[in-house]
């Protein structure tokens, strides 16, 4: 699924200007705890979160993620959006809740890549 298709499925507004939204992504995870993302996530390309601070982008960058979806209508400030553009991480915001947004993406084929037990 392309990043821009995620935006369409979630009625989301894409906030970054330069980050490539034509990239194909296959896996996603949802969390407000960046500690958990760093600990349990393996090769996820998309992060859905209700947390809104620069650490979200830094965490996504460390994990080599390509897209962050802010749920529940959270809109990151300009500095955070610039960080996304700089690191080629597409940022978008949707009014949908975490559960609803994850459900839509899961139903449409995005999967979770669980770490080895």
């Amino acid at each position: 699924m392309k990043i821009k298709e995620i935006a369409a499925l979630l009625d989301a507004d894409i906030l970054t200007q330069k980050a490539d939204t034509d990239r194909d992504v296959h896996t996603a995870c949802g969390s407000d705890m960046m500690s958990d993302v760093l600990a349990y996530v393996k090769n996820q390309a998309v992060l859905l979160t209700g947390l809104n601070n620069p650490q979200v982008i830094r965490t996504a960058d460390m994990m080599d993620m390509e897209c962050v979806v802010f749920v529940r209508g959270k809109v990151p400030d300009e500095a955070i959006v610039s960080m996304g553009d700089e690191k080629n991480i597409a940022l978008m915001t949707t009014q949908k809740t975490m559960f609803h947004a994850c459900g839509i993406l899961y139903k449409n084929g995005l999967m979770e890549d669980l770490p080895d037990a």
Partner: protein
Amino acid sequence: MREPIRIHHAVSGEEFSTAGEASTDIKKRLKMMGVPAEAIRRAAIALYEAEINLVIHAGGGDIDVEIYPDRIRMLVADSGPGIADIDLAMSEGFSTATEDIRNLGFGAGMGLPNMKKYSDTFHIESTTGVGTRIDMSVNTDD
């Protein structure tokens, strides 16, 4: 043996919003040096966890990275309060972080276990009232 490439960052403990800038810079430089991607990812995550700890627990500290042909060595030192029980601090889920820190998305008690998980060697020394030193490395030749 050839001298390693060294990178130093002083990490401020003042501002949570800048926590991670040092790790971001080091990750970028490792990429430019052509270090294998998986090694960069593991080193960056371990370092980012350490940097977050410096900011939320220790009031800042120093990060020194040494890049050898076969490994990335990361030394993280602070003069913070120290860790009273290292075994307890190394167990997943144990945290002394405040509710405010948890609201920022950290403090789940995964920092130290995560550093150990993502690195190939991990050593920690801590004295209460003196500070903490972590010496960890990620192999780049496999």
